[in-house]
């Protein structure tokens, strides 16, 4: 006869633990792995996120810094003469809902743009620049919707999105929120398309104080007009997160919906065939190694019951955005209507786009 006391778990406790396990993205993992993730020294998931962020941030500033400085210096005359995104803070026609549009695979999968174009959404629509041609082609145009587009990327090829025939056709009426470090040709292309351009700074080295280029940007911006203020935003390293920040900090919206913000790749496509937005995985990598699995995880979204694949870049963007959403959950509602992807967790409400349009159309 055993001397041990039988151990029982109440159904309520079991369900609580199951919910936490799923929220951590560990629904496909064993209970042992879940327990380990709670008690492991240093909390490995957070450590990995920090490692990813530290490496990519360091490489990013090395890669982009000169471009930012060069682009800003060439943009300066236009920065002096054009509008600041500050002007949008003072607009009287604030809406309390905004919808961010990204380019993730879920947007086509669920035909979100068609659904949106057939709606009478009254809120602000903030597109990432990459999504703009598709958005306009779907009939989401400035005569029917309050439309914004954001560019933060410093590369010249972003201008092609503004030179697209559909952008030229519908550009007038779109408000373009442009980083002061974007390529100068993007400004020209946006203006050429008839857009109203509003400048915004992007934060990257402001914490260095007087030695920072961000501070110098501020000084140079005010050199011609000491009253001119241009707001500065956290980009989260990608235009989707930038659009989210703009929606609440500049446009003053309280309910921020998001579509196409998968922050991951379609799980139906194999690792070899994915069209990476960064670099492809190295050819000779062992996909069974723990290093690969940490860098390229398959994430389970418990709210939508689906999986998606991530690379280090998507992890970097996703971890940061989740952190920012958590920090702001008391003052804004972030509603993920992507219906797929890796964005879930504390402060994020996951629903369908249809539900968002029904409940947040104001």
């Amino acid at each position, binding site marked *: 006869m055993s001397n041990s006391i039988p151990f029982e778990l109440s159904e309520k406790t079991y369900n609580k633990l199951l919910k936490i396990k799923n929220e951590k993205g560990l629904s496909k993992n064993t209970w042992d792995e879940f327990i380990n993730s709670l008690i492991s020294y240093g909390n490995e998931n957070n450590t990995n996120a920090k490692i990813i962020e530290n490496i990519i941030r360091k*490489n990013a500033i090395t890669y982009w810094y000169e471009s930012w400085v060069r682009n800003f210096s*060439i943009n300066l005359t236009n920065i002096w003469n054009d509008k600041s995104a500050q002007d949008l803070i003072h607009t009287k026609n604030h809406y309390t809902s905004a919808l961010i549009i990204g380019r993730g695979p879920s947007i086509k999968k669920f035909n979100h743009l068609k659904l949106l174009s057939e709606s009478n959404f009254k809120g602000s629509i903030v597109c990432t620049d990459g999504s703009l041609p598709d958005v306009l082609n779907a009939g989401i145009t400035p005569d029917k919707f309050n439309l914004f587009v954001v560019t933060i990327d410093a590369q010249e090829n972003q201008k092609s999105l503004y030179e697209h025939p559909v952008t030229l056709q519908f550009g007038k009426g779109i408000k373009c929120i442009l980083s002061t470090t974007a390529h*100068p040709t993007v400004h*020209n292309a946006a203006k050429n398309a008839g857009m109203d351009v509003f400048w915004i700074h992007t934060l990257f080295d402001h914490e260095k104080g007087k030695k920072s280029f961000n501070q110098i940007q501020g000084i140079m911006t005010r050199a011609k007009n000491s009253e001119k203020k241009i707001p500065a935003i956290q980009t989260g390293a990608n235009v989707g997160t930038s659009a989210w920040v703009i929606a609440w900090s500049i446009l003053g919206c309280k309910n921020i919906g998001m579509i196409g913000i998968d922050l991951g790749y379609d799980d139906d496509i194999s690792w070899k065939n994915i069209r990476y937005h960064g*670099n*492809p995985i190295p*050819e000779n990598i062992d996909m069974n190694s723990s290093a690969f699995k940490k860098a390229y995880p398959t994430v389970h979204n418990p709210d939508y019951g689906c999986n998606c694949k991530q690379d280090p870049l998507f992890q970097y963007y996703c971890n940061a955005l989740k952190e920012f959403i958590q920090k702001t959950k008391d003052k804004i509602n972030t509603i993920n209507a992507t219906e797929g992807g890796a964005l879930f967790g504390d402060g994020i409400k996951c629903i369908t786009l249809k539900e968002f349009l029904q409940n947040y159309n104001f």
Partner: protein
Amino acid sequence: MKVLLIHPPVRVDHDPLDMPQGLMILASIAIQEGHQTALLDLNSQRPVPTWQNIAKQMGVEKWDVIAIGGLSSMYDDIVKVLKIARKLNPDALIVCGGGFITYMPDKIMKFCPEIDIAGIGEGEELFKDVLRTKEKGGNWANVEGICYRDDDQILFTAPRPLIPNLDTLPLPAYDLVDVEEYFKYSGSLWTAPGSWQSKRRMNMVTERGCPRQCTFCTHNGMNRWDQEMILGKDRVRQMDKDFGFQAIVRFFSPKYVIEHALHLYDKYKIDYLCLMDENNTASPGRMHEFCDLWIKEGLHKKVRLATGGDSPSIKPDLVKHMKEANFSTIAIGGESGSDRILLNDIGKGVTRAHNQQAIEILQAGGITPSMTFMVGNPNEDINDVLETVDFFIQNNAIVDPFICTPYPGTKIFFDNQDFILQQYDERLALLAKSPNPNISEEVIKKWKDEALQTFLLSLNNATDYSCTVSKKFDYADLIAIKHFMHEHNTDKLLKLAHMRGWNHDHKWDDICPVCKAEQDISLVIS
């Protein structure tokens, strides 16, 4: 012996497009000589590997010979690679070659103590001799065309003649390069327009040298002009007598090139071949022969082509034949829209009218002209810049001009050496204005060497500013002018001229916003 050849990163802000042909031929030679040979290509991926990763790859074996080659614009990475190579292989023979070392091998060997042997100019026969001498323990003094160390001294050996028949060279060692990695970048926008739809693009070099003597150009020591620059005319004339005429330009024969291309098609299923030659059309007879053979082999139906040429050689019959052979693009160095600059500063022997005619003939013949330009030539002034922009506007051309950069070995480098070094050391600049007899020649030489090293480390590809030979524009002017030229912004160029006090020709008065404003005001007053 175990031989490692290393290709350092180049143009890291672009996609990697071109396999290191020269190094691959040297690898073939090492293999033919019976050595265990490896090639470490650090340029085939983006982003380039970390230095830690590079060290790990270099450290997989203990090498007997390490060969590193590259252009002047790769110097800063070569310096880092050398340090790692020497640390990991203290006893290896490190031999370097290519444009970065050919023109001042003794100086580079002084700056880089890791280098044992510098190869000057053409490398194939030289490398064979170096390997044989290393293996047998021979005397470096007997190997032609090198610099080597003898205790504290750096000594030159007798110059090596050019290889008279390039067809004797082996094919590049494609097995030692990750060819599929390069194919990923086939449709890159950094390539010529005709290749944007290609999926399996390769490059090939079929020419060494060029009949034009542009002051900004060199040929890595592989033609007569370069030899004269390095050795002097008298020495080269002596070499003509001893070894035969040292050619201005040499080609692989069309037959050789076709066989090479057939090998690439059969093995790698290429759909696009870029003949990375400076001036393929300058030998029209050879080009016609090439086109005939290409078409005869049926390659025109399978592989698109691109190459380089010069404007005067672009003639309708040649273009027609090249179009039949499926050439999609011919790249030409247009350089400037100003005849004054083309003829005097650049010395190309080409005029604006030649360039215009070439564009028209190519367009009429259905081949895309790809023309490059540059700004910052020594005597170029605002009027010359405006002529060039006028050329862009007339031809509706979107051009981001290069900045005229005095790479080592070029005439503009040799003619402006002191001016270049003064940009890297303010002491030299001050002494140039006010010489001081109390400062010894030895001290000045030391400062010049330091400045030279800083200059070499600063060199990048000419899309960015590193230093200038312009007598008219400073670096801030050049960056702004380059940008305005790209935008066709004559307004800003002319305003800049007025701001800086540069006189512009009256022919630009009608489009000058400042002159027009002055005219309007005087009309109102009168």
